C-alpha cells in the first residue's frame, strides 16, 4: 500500500515535470513563429490605415459601376458563352486523358515503377496553374479560345488524374478478388471489378471540375486566351465601369446557374 502511494506520487511528479517541459517547448516554438508572422505582415505592407484611406475610392468605384450599361449585353453573353465552351471542351477532354493516367498512378493497380513515374509527372505538372499554362499556350499557338482550352486541359488532366487515382486506391478489393477468381483477364477485372465502383465518383469529380473551370476560364481572356475575360479587362482599362459591371453580372449569373445544376446532378450520382 505504502509502496504503491510512493510509486503513484513519483508518477505524478513525472507527469508534472512533463507538463512543464511541454509548456516550455510550446513557448520556444510559438514565440519565434509569431515573430515570423509579424515580419510577413510588415513585408506585405498590410495596413488597416491604408485600407481605411482607400474606402472612399472603393465606394466611388462601385458608384461608377451603377447602373450597369446593358448596351454591351450582347458581347457579355457572347463572351460568357465562349468561356462556358472553353470550360466544357477542356474539362471533358481532360476527363478522358486523365482516365489512363489515373489507373497508372494508382498504387493498387499499376506496377511500382510506373506508379512512381506517372505520379511524379502528374505532381510536377499540377504545381503550375491554369493561368500560367494559358500564357505558355498563347505564346505557342496564338490568341483565341484554343490556347485557353489547352490550358484548361493541361491543368485539369493532372488534377483529375490525382482524384481518379485516389478513388481507385479506395475501392473495395473484394469484388476485384472475386472477378479474378472467375478466370477473368486483367482488363476484364478492370472493367467489371474496378470501373463500376469508381465511375460515379469520376463523373462527380468531372462536374465539380467543370464548375471550377468556368471560374478559371473567366480570367483566361486577360492573357488573350479567349472568353469573357477579354471584355472585363478591356472595359476596366477603358474605365467604362457600367459596361464592366454588366459583364460581371452576366458572369455571376452563369457561374451560379452552372454550380446549381452541377451540384444537383452530383447529389443524384452518389
Amino acid at each position, binding site marked *: 500500500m505504502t509502496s504503491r502511494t510512493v510509486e503513484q506520487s513519483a508518477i505524478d511528479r513525472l507527469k508534472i515535470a512533463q507538463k512543464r517541459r511541454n509548456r516550455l517547448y510550446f513557448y520556444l516554438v510559438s514565440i519565434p513563429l509569431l515573430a515570423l508572422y509579424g515580419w510577413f505582415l510588415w513585408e506585405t505592407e498590410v495596413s488597416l490605415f491604408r485600407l481605411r484611406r482607400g474606402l472612399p475610392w472603393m465606394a466611388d468605384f462601385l458608384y461608377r459601376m451603377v447602373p450597369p450599361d446593358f448596351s454591351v449585353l450582347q458581347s457579355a453573353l457572347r463572351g460568357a458563352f465562349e468561356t462556358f465552351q472553353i470550360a466544357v471542351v477542356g474539362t471533358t477532354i481532360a476527363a478522358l486523358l486523365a482516365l489512363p493516367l489515373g489507373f497508372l498512378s494508382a498504387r493498387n493497380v499499376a506496377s511500382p515503377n510506373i506508379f512512381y513515374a506517372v505520379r511524379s509527372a502528374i505532381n510536377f505538372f499540377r504545381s503550375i496553374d491554369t493561368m500560367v499554362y494559358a500564357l505558355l499556350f498563347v505564346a505557342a499557338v496564338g490568341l483565341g479560345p484554343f490556347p485557353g482550352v489547352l490550358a484548361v486541359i493541361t491543368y485539369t488532366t493532372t488534377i483529375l488524374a490525382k482524384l481518379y487515382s485516389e478513388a481507385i486506391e479506395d475501392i*473495395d478489393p*473484394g*469484388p476485384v*478478388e*472475386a*472477378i*479474378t*477468381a*472467375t*478466370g*477473368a*483477364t486483367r*482488363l*476484364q477485372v478492370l*472493367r*467489371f*471489378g474496378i470501373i*463500376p*465502383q469508381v465511375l*460515379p465518383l469520376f463523373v462527380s469529380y468531372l462536374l465539380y471540375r467543370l464548375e471550377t473551370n468556368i471560374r478559371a476560364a473567366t480570367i483566361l481572356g486577360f492573357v488573350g486566351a479567349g472568353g469573357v475575360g477579354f471584355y472585363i479587362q478591356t472595359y476596366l482599362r477603358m474605365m467604362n465601369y457600367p459596361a464592366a459591371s454588366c459583364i460581371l453580372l452576366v458572369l455571376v449569373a452563369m457561374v451560379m446557374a452552372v454550380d446549381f445544376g452541377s451540384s444537383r446532378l452530383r447529389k443524384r450520382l452518389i
Partner: protein
Amino acid sequence: MIEVRDLTKIYPPDKLALDQVNLKVGAGEFVIILGRSGAGKSTLLRCLNRLVEPSGGEVFWDGMEVTATSREGLRKVRREIGMIFQQFNLVKRATVLENVLAGRLGYAGALKSLFGRFSVEDELLALECLEQVGLAGFSERRADTLSGGEQQRVAIARALAQRPRVILADEPTASLDPRLTQTIMDILKRINKEKDITLIVSQHQLEVAMEYAERIVGLRSGRVLYDGSVSDLGPEAIEAIYGGEEGRDDQSNSRTVGH
C-alpha cells in the same frame, strides 16, 4: 482431382501461414476445412487457385501443376473453380444479373465482354443459376439493395455460372446469422449432391462443420492436424484444433465438447 504437396506460404516478413500442407480432394467430395481464425484456412483456399501465390510446394489440378502454369493456363483452371467469400464480394452498384454474368468472364470473348456484352446463352445460364439459388425475379435489382443472405446466394449463382467442377467457399456463413447459415450451407450441400460439384468449405464453427461435413480437415497454425471423417473426429482432435493458450473461450468450449 486437387492435390496439394508440401504447400507453404510465408507472408512477408516472416508470418508462416501454411506449413507444408498435404491434401488430396477427389471428385464429388464435400470437405470442410476447420480451424480458428488465423489458422490459415483462407490462405489455403486462395493458394488452390493462386489468388495467393504460394511460397513453396505444389498444387495440382487433374494432374496439371497449377503452381507452374502460365497466365493463360491459370485462367483455364480458375474458370473451372468457383469461389465464394465471407464478404460476398459482389459489385454493389451493379445489378444482380451483371454480378452473376461475371462468372462467365473466363469463357467470354475478351473484346465483346469489355463492352459489357454477353451472349444470349450466357444470360440464360445466369438466370437459370439465379433460379437455382431461389432468386428468380431478382435479376434487375441492384446488388446492394439485397440482404446479406441474398447477396451470398447471388455470389453462389455467380460461382455456378462458371459451370465449375469445384467450388471453394471461404467462410461463407461467417457474416450471417444462424438461420441464414443453415440456408447457405443447405444450398452448398444441395449443389454438391445434385450437380456433383466438389465443395471445399472453410468454417470456424464446429457445430456447422459437424452437421454438414463428410470429411473434415483440421487446420491449426498452418498445419493439418486432422484429416478424416466427421464420425472419427474425437475430443482430442477438437482440442488440438481449437484448444490452447491463445484464447480461454476456445479452451473452455473444447472442454465442454470433450466431456
